[in-house]
């Protein structure tokens, strides 16, 4: 049996799955229920000077038949009295001494930071997470992402906290910034023990077409909120990777953003996270999802022969290069498996309108044909094909050549001027613009009163 337990910057947890600071960790009741269900840790809903929330406060992005592929909120930090939260933290720790309880904090002055760190330390918290990420409401008061966006301020606050903290300190970063490694490095300079990312992304999830207001709507009005859920995972993964690869960050990373199942978690871990946090998925499906997550992670580790989480933290990082270091001699070409093809011709339109006109249709069959000379191996057709393994990208280069953009630049064989013959596009086949006109099959399909012609059947009286 693989060992799922972690020691994250000194915070011990029976598994790497933590509930992120959010509504699911709003109370002792919820956190105990979650630990009972199998979660390894919980970052308490952010403590600070009490606030008042509005209603409604959540917005969703539904895609076709899927609900909440994206989620946003305009909620603030905990709106419960600090003393209630602290008493409950104490009780949770009493009953679950081996689980991780992390106090998320957000206040303004040095004195306030000192007070709240000491108070939550006394309540028994295993560590702190400094919320420098909230992109709405709090930032307007100079907290949350307003701090996350100012590395100098961030560093100063971390230093204040370190003056009193006797437990590990995690800095939670905002993605609302152009280079995530800058606040990450500031956190390190300030003496933080770890970072966690990402907090929510400033967003408007939609606009009501009848009320002319953004969601969520509060008495006919709305404001920008923080975006999260499955849709933000790609952004989170990239930011986790950036921090993990940066030589001056070198802090343990708690990965957050779009984690809904064990696969999402493994992806975060492969890119450098060593604990993961979950919010939207727990809000959507409840604490019970942890069973699938731990079971899946365990199964993955058994199959790969990993004994501990640390066996694969950052394992994908060596394969994430800069664009200029990719091998330009590597070539793939699309290949259609005729037996699997169902003739939807989505690949044809995608390539014709959205790529390189490298697929053609032949009379008498609905199976399209790849025009190999024109195929640049972009992958689009295989991405749109609805049949598993029907379009595969087959390697067509010799496999012996290797040349990168950097090498070309260094060798002086990279194009440098606008009309340069060395530009890659020159040798791709492109039809003359006028050939686009009058293509009967590209015109909008019948719809309006397509005439019924008895051509296919022999009309009785004709």
């Amino acid at each position: 049996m693989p060992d799922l337990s972690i020691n994250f910057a000194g915070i011990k947890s029976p598994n790497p799955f933590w509930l992120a600071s959010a509504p699911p960790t709003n109370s002792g009741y919820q956190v105990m229920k979650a630990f009972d269900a199998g979660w390894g840790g919980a970052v308490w809903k952010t403590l600070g000077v009490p606030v008042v929330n509005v209603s409604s406060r959540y917005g969703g992005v539904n895609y076709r038949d899927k609900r909440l592929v994206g989620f946003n909120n305009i909620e603030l930090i905990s709106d419960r009295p600090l003393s209630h939260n602290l008493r409950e933290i104490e009780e949770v720790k009493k009953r679950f001494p081996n689980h991780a309880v992390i106090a998320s904090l957000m206040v303004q002055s040095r004195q306030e930071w000192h007070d709240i760190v000491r108070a939550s330390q006394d309540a028994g918290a295993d560590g702190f997470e400094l919320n420098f990420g909230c992109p709405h409401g709090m930032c307007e008061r100079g907290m949350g992402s307003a701090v996350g966006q100012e590395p100098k301020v961030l560093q100063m606050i971390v230093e204040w906290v370190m003056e009193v903290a006797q437990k590990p300190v995690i800095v939670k970063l905002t993605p609302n910034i152009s280079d995530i490694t800058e606040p990450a490095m500031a956190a390190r300079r300030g003496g933080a023990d770890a970072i966690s990312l990402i907090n929510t992304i400033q967003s408007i999830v939609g606009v009501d077409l009848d009320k002319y207001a953004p969601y969520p709507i509060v008495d006919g009005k709305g404001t920008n909120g923080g975006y999260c859920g499955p849709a933000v995972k790609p952004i989170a993964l990239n930011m986790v990777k950036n921090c993990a690869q940066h030589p001056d960050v070198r802090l343990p990373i708690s990965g957050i953003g779009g984690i809904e199942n064990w696969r999402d978690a493994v992806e975060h871990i492969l890119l450098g996270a060593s604990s993961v946090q979950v919010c939207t998925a727990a809000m959507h499906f409840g604490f019970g999802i942890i069973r699938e997550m731990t079971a899946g992670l365990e199964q993955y580790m058994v199959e790969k022969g990993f004994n501990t989480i640390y066996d694969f933290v950052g394992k994908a990082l060596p394969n994430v290069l800069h664009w200029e270091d990719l091998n330009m001699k590597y070539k793939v070409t699309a290949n259609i498996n005729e037996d699997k093809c169902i003739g939807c011709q989505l690949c044809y339109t995608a390539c014709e309108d959205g790529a390189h006109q490298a697929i053609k249709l032949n009379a008498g069959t609905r199976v399209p044909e790849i025009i190999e000379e024109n195929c640049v191996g972009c992958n689009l057709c295989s991405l749109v094909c609805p049949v598993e393994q029907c379009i595969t990208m087959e390697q067509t280069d010799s496999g012996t050549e290797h040349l990168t953009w950097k090498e070309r630049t260094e060798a002086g064989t990279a194009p440098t001027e606008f009309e340069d013959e060395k530009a890659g596009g020159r040798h791709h086949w492109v039809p003359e613009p006028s050939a686009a006109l009058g293509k009967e099959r590209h015109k909008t399909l019948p719809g309006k009163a397509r005439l019924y012609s008895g051509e296919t059947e022999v009309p009785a009286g004709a």
Partner: protein
Amino acid sequence: MAEFSTPTTEQQFAENFAQLKPVMNRTEALYESSRCLFCFDAPCIKACPSGIDIPQFIRQINSGNDTGAARTIYEANYFGNACGKVCPTEVLCEGACVYNLQEVKPIEIGRLQSYATTKAIKSGKKLFGPGEDNGKKVAVIGAGPAGISAACELRTLGYEVDVFEAKAQPSGLTVYGVAPYKITNEETLAEMAYLQSQFGYNVHFNSAISSRDELAGLENKYDAIFLGIGLGKTNELGLPGEDKINCTGAVEFIAELRQHHHEVAVGRKVIVLGGGNTAMDAASESSRLGAENVILAYRRAKEEMGAYEFEYDLAKGVGVKGLFNVAPVEITGNGYVAGVKFIRTETKDGRVQEIAGSEFIEPCDMVIKATGQAKQTEFLNLIPGLKLDNKGRIIANAHTGQTSNPKYFASGDAWNGGAEVVNAAAEAKLTARGIHAYLSK
């Protein structure tokens, strides 16, 4: 024993004849429409006789534009709601859906179609209207799918249209013939009312055109006459005993059923003669009316039946038994039907041959003849110069619908010899344009 108990109330009738394709709710429509791939040059469109832009309307449903979806459907097919429920989608649009090739359930195109159009009908939204009055008039005989579709299209082209219908309700066999588990009377008539309110044609009910004088009157008063008269009564078999009480034609039996529901009596043991879709309907319907035993008797082998496979499966599913390679020779009984005397047959070189001495009597108390509908040749012969082919079908140009009497145009069952609602609707639309081309010359 019977699978269905005899319905004695409207509610029990509705249970026994529960809709095979109930109208979807919003969630169902959202989920189902999500699956459509939006195929290029979509095969489903080609398989629909009326050429509805299916991926387009499905995408409109998916994006919450149900009204736009209804418009897309009606632009191609005025019986959009009915067709969604009564079309043999298994062999038309849904049969062509590419998902079949992936062994995945095809998109439920018919139900999505009814979903969008039902919403439009219920909302009463004005989606269409008549075109600018062009001062010309067309008479339409028959308010079936062909006649009503022609009327709608002619109105958009600016004609004044008077429809003459023998019966008391519009939509022809859609309300007098199609099985009640495919569509309800309310649904059919709601679509008819919607179309009439959108296009504003006149319908004269209980107004059969039956004499030369009446035709002459129309010829004088109108610029063109559209024949959408469909087919006639059930064919006579010419068997001894065919006049016995409880020996009835399928078309007549079903018309009764559609109008009077559970008040229609069925025998305990019913024999349905025939192997077409109407025979399957009549057998299913008898069973759902509580008949204890329903036998479907066909003179050739099972595989040679004209009915769609899914229609036979449907009948089998409600307990109908097949009896194949038998030909009826006599309806027995004393005043009332008591049985059918059959002779066994075999097919040799494609021809049915009777096996001498193999006669037997299958007892029953009701016989339903589903042996095809007669043509209305007597009526059609009143039209000067109108030519019929050797099967009694009106001869007309496949694209314009014009008959050999230039003033007369035809579509639907009377022209094609009997097909589906969707064919009648599609042909009539085309013919209305043929009329327009002719009168615009």
